[in-house]
């Protein structure tokens, strides 16, 4: 193809259809990736030995983390392909890989059926999901940015940035709808598999849409001129001039953005469910409302970054996170803290149910549910399940659930929403920022690695590290144990803020390194 035949200008109409096709695919990839995290608790009971629920939960978090840790490898593998054969074909492969792995997770038999093979297969499929996501995001962001006019990249790429939150939002929605459309026992038996299985339909539709897309004009031009890279990995990381920008992108932007992103969306969810013991449906509903309110701000801050630069917006998001997280989480915790509430003792209810265990005529399960009602409408349920078996002793399992009143629910929604504003500030402009930091021929590889180390490793490990810090602090009888998990994102975001402030020169309004 001669370079004269390649138009570098894309009309707004074409751009809208490009954004639509790219965003739908990326959104589905995020959906696929996040249903695993959102169903972590139920997955732990299905695939991991359930003698110790905490161990099972942490094992799932570890599997979750494995999905994140492998993302940088996906970034290297698919980034290299994308810089050599093109953006379009590469992110078609990642979409199919992700869809296949997600669908397969929905088909894996339980631990009770195939033993240790079950968690092993789930772990392998989770790793494949991580690899696919590692390749997808950089491709989509690069593809959209390379179609966008200069000076509008922040606005157009912010639609790709929305997909991560929208994917989480849709995953929570599909889970809630599926769960509420069936009996609890059915959901726990096989119903949880539905959100994984429906992914294959969405992926199929997305592949059909993406198939008709054309290659990025900047990449097509570089290819026609013979200016593509022969060895993108060597040119990205073996070349000091470029490698210093990779390090700058990681330590001055993506590392902080990653922890802000995961604190605002995932740790908020873990905190509501595991530390505050908020009822599962109520916690996810309030998270969905906050996500709906916060999501449009990705575009607002993406657009604003075209006007005033990427750096001030991203760094302000990090700075606000650093100074506001402790007061926000203190307020969240106190909102549902039962010691601040007055119980109506006359409404105290204790229910005991006894049922025979499946396939047994003597062993039974005793479930004791104690319900406490408070003057402000809060309802606290404590359930203790005890196996009464003739031949073995088992420890009783206890679960707690707090259903808060409408006013407290809105307090929590606003507190999560404020965190989402920090997320949209740090994350909205970052695709445009990364794209502009690296030249076309090694862009896919160079931007994908710092993004996935920052977002995947630093951010993805955040809920696991924070849960560990909270447990350790609780064991040490620290009265503020519930805030201990915030030490990690605050430290990481602080260092990133200082490095970003001092070393990043904003290219946002002026152009890029090409």
């Amino acid at each position, binding site marked *: 193809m001669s370079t004269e035949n390649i138009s570098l200008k894309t009309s707004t109409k074409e751009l809208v259809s490009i954004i639509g096709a790219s965003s739908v695919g990326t959104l589905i990839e995020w959906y696929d990736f996040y249903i695993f995290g959102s169903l972590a608790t139920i997955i732990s009971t299905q695939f991991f030995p359930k003698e110790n629920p905490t161990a099972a939960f942490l094992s799932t978090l570890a599997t979750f983390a494995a999905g994140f840790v492998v993302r940088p490898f996906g970034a290297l593998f698919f980034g290299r392909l994308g810089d050599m054969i093109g953006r379009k074909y590469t992110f078609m492969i990642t979409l199919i890989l992700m869809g296949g792995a997600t669908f397969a997770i929905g088909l894996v038999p339980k631990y009770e059926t195939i033993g240790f093979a079950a968690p092993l297969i789930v772990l392998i499929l989770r790793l494949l999901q991580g690899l696919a996501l590692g390749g997808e995001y950089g491709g989509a962001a690069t593809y959209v940015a390379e179609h966008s006019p200069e000076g509008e990249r922040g606005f157009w790429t912010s639609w790709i940035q929305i997909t991560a939150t929208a994917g989480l939002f849709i995953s929570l929605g599909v889970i809630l709808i599926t769960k509420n459309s069936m009996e609890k026992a059915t959901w726990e038996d096989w119903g949880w598999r539905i959100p994984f299985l429906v992914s294959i339909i969405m992926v199929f539709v997305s592949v059909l849409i993406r198939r008709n897309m054309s290659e990025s004009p900047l990449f097509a031009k570089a290819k026609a001129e013979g200016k593509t890279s022969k060895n993108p990995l060597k040119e990205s990381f073996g070349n000091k001039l470029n490698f210093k920008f990779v*390090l*700058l992108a990681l330590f001055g932007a993506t590392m902080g953005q990653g922890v802000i992103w995961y604190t605002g969306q995932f740790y908020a969810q873990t905190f509501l469910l595991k530390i505050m013991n908020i009822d599962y449906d109520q916690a996810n509903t309030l998270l969905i409302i906050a996500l709906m309110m916060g999501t449009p701000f990705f575009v607002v801050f993406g657009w604003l970054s075209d006007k005033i630069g990427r750096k001030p917006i991203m760094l302000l998001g990090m700075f606000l996170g650093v100074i506001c997280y402790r007061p926000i989480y203190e307020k969240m915790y106190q909102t549902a803290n039962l010691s601040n509430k007055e119980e109506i003792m006359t409404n105290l209810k204790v229910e005991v149910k006894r049922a025979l265990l499946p396939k047994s005529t003597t062993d039974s399960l005793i479930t004791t549910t104690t319900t406490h009602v408070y003057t402000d409408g809060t309802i606290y349920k404590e359930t203790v399940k005890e196996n009464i078996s003739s031949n073995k002793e088992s420890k009783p399992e206890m679960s707690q659930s707090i259903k808060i009143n409408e006013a407290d629910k809105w307090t929590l929604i606003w507190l999560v929403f404020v965190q989402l504003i920090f997320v949209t500030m740090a994350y909205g402009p970052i695709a445009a920022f990364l794209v502009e930091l690296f030249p076309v021929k090694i862009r896919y590889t160079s931007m994908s690695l710092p993004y996935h180390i920052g977002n995947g490793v630093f951010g993805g490990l955040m809920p696991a590290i924070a849960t560990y810090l909270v447990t350790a602090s609780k064991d040490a009888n620290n009265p503020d144990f519930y805030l201990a998990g915030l030490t990690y994102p605050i430290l990481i975001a602080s*260092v990133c803020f200082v490095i970003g402030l001092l070393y990043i020169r904003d290219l946002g309004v002026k152009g890029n390194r090409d």
Partner: protein
Amino acid sequence: MKEIKKILGIVWMLLGLATAYFGIFELGIPKFSSGKQEDLVFGIIIMLVLTPIITGGLLIFGKYAWDGEFGD
């Protein structure tokens, strides 16, 4: 500003070394020796993934900063 960026290079290198110490001796080794499965997974992730990235990355970043690579 150029001088501040250079001098801070030493801070980033020291921070990298401090992370290595904390990651290995405060978090990693105690987790490895606790005997619990979940601690082992956590220890592996901290020692083999997070610590090398932070330490290695900050040492190189600090060296570049000290050499004046980020001066302009």
